[in-house]
């Protein structure tokens, strides 16, 4: 295979990443899996509308090592600008493969909160990391086959090639963020990680691991930002572990520049009476494929899945969501909103799976697309697989242009058409943001939206 000729994807590259022996072994196994798997093709249901055949691993190089900085003032301008207006209590800044700057207030440390980059965590809290790393997003694609009644057909198993990118990440992740919040600890202000990328032709494999232990509460914000690049790649993995009675709010803002290919799998494992609230914002990159999965493992668990994205020009955004109910009395509520302008392409596949025995499931899924151009195209594929008989599930998707009556109303008040369109696009997305009680990051997202709306 020509792909393995690239040193960046060799066993030596894995060894060079260091870390404990068990990790190197997991990495090596993942690398082998990566080498053995083909890229997913359109014949694979989950990749039907997104063509990744052009991804060429032979040409990619890892990101260069950047020096750590001791002073915020030495951080890249884009990061400083973000830090100036964020209210995160503690943060990590990744530039290149490593963390270059970290802040953790003493008060959090005293509460027993662990918040550091994954490599450091491997040194300081090896047992913790070992327990959870790869437990939710392993190298191979998680088997989300539903549990069906005897004698009936369960859902199809995933195609192994769906593990291609997660295997790559499992083998070669570098800039990892690690959060552990101990039992009964509530962290008031959000924690965050900023990742920047500034090299054309490079790839980065980012990883976030958040563990909210029993009855704890925390908010984590992942932000990704870059200038426009020529052919850069970000392969992400996000593992969210929400233990009994814990509450985790997770926000991801993908604001890469054009030219970046972004492929990320995010998966939450939600235990008994635990709550996961997530928001995934996709604005950047040229090709962006994001998977958001909630595995409702525990009785009474709850997952809110919000998404907003805005694709323009040649952008292709693919969102693949899963609400998998494995326990009774769990609740999931998904609301995704997409705006497509110019010749952009949007794909939304949303799946609700309910296992046998997951009675009293409440599962909702809504996807709405606003089309600003007749050349933009959207494919929405909502799917249900229900193996329990006492459930409430609904799904729906709508696609259409700006509401002509709303448009006319604004025009009739003297607002020019182009501004009226911007107002309606912003309003359309605002609806999602109004459900996120994080003033500072919402303000940032609004600014990102405004910039994008302004450019249309």
């Amino acid at each position, binding site marked *: 295979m020509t792909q393995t000729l690239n040193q960046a994807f060799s066993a030596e590259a894995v060894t060079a990443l260091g870390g404990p022996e068990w990790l190197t072994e997991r990495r090596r196994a993942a690398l082998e899996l990566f080498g053995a798997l083909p890229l997913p093709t359109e014949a694979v249901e989950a990749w039907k509308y997104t063509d990744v055949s052009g991804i060429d691993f032979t040409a990619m190089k890892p990101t260069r090592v950047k020096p750590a900085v001791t002073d915020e003032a030495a951080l890249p301008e884009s990061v400083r600008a973000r830090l100036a207006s964020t209210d995160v209590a503690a943060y990590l800044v990744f530039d290149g493969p490593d963390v270059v700057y970290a802040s953790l207030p003493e008060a959090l440390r005293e509460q027993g909160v662990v918040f550091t980059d994954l490599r450091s965590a491997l040194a300081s809290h090896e047992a913790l990391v070992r327990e959870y790393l790869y437990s939710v997003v392993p190298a191979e694609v998680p088997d989300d086959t539903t549990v069906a009644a005897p004698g009936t057909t369960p859902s199809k198993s995933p195609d192994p090639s769906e593990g291609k990118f997660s295997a790559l990440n499992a083998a070669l992740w570098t800039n990892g963020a690690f959060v552990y919040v101990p039992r009964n600890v509530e962290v008031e202000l959000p924690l965050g990680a900023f990742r920047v990328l500034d090299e054309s032709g490079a790839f980065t494999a980012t990883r976030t691991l958040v563990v909210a232990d029993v009855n704890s509460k925390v908010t984590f914000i992942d932000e990704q930002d870059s200038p426009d690049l020529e052919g850069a790649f970000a392969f992400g993995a996000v593992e969210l572990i929400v233990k009994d009675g814990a509450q985790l709010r997770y926000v991801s803002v993908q604001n890469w520049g054009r030219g970046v290919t972004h492929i990320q799998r995010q998966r939450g494992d939600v235990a008994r009476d635990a709550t996961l609230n997530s928001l995934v914002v996709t604005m950047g990159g040229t090709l962006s494929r994001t998977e958001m999965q909630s595995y409702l493992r525990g009785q009474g668990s709850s997952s809110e899945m919000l998404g907003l994205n805005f694709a323009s020009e040649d952008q292709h955004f693919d969102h693949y969501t899963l609400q998998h109910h494995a326990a009774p009395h769990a609740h999931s509520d998904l609301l995704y909103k997409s705006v497509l302008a110019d010749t952009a392409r949007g794909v939304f596949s949303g799946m609700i799976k309910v296992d046998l025995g997951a009675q009293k499931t409440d599962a909702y899924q809504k996807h709405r697309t606003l089309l600003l151009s007749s050349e933009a195209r959207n494919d929405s594929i909502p799917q249900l697989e229900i193996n329990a008989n006492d459930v409430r599930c609904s799904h729906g998707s709508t696609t259409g242009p700006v509401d002509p009556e709303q448009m006319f109303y604004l025009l009739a*008040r003297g607002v020019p058409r182009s501004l009226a369109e911007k*107002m309606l696009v912003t309003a359309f997305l*605002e609806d999602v943001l109004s459900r996120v009680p994080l003033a500072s990051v919402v303000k940032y997202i609004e600014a990102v939206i405004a910039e994008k709306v302004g450019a249309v």
Partner: protein
Amino acid sequence: MTNQLEIRNLHASVGDLPILRGVNITVPRGELHAVMGPNGNGKSTLAKVIVGDPEYTVTEGEILVDGHNVLEMEPDERARLGLFLAFQYPVEIPGVTIANFLRLAMQARKPEGEEVSFMEFYGKLQEALKVLEWDESIVERYLNAGFSGGEKKRNEILQMLMLDPTYIIMDETDSGLDVDALKIVSKGVNSLRGPNLGGLVITHYQRLLNYIVPDKVHIIVEGRVVQTGGPELAQRLDAEGYDWVKELARA
């Protein structure tokens, strides 16, 4: 002579269906005219055609605003020229706050490079809210989202007060209002009345015209003005109903 809203032989249709069949009405500035008539005879259509609703096609006739033919103008241009329609059924726009909307609509009326100052906006807003006996917190709400029928109507008048129109068209602003709200809304409209304001007040009820006394009354049946008169005409309609005007249409 040219300071008037002039509707000349206006014909308009939806698709192939003709609705207006030759409407003639002239309203000089300084006057408000009531427009009455049975359900489904073209009153709202007339209102919407004047402000440029793309649902309707004008097949014949002219609309002149202070001498400018507006038929070729976009709805937003017409609004900036001074036309204002208080809608019969205002739409809900969740995600756009009233405050932001008003500010942008005011800004749109400014010449290039001139900003609506905070003082100008806020001062005007305070005044308008006072007239409408409304709490300031309302402007942080999304436009008409979840508003009661009465609140929507009041919000139309708030916008009217903020945007300084020269010709207002009110489409059944009174329907669905209780007496107190009716008084407040009328107070708002009357606060704008003067030599520079003209307009049409579409209504079915004398009740409104007790508060907003019209200079003339036009009755529209089957897409035409079949009768024009003074305020006494509205009283007659209130007492006798529409049967006799339908007769007029047939004649």
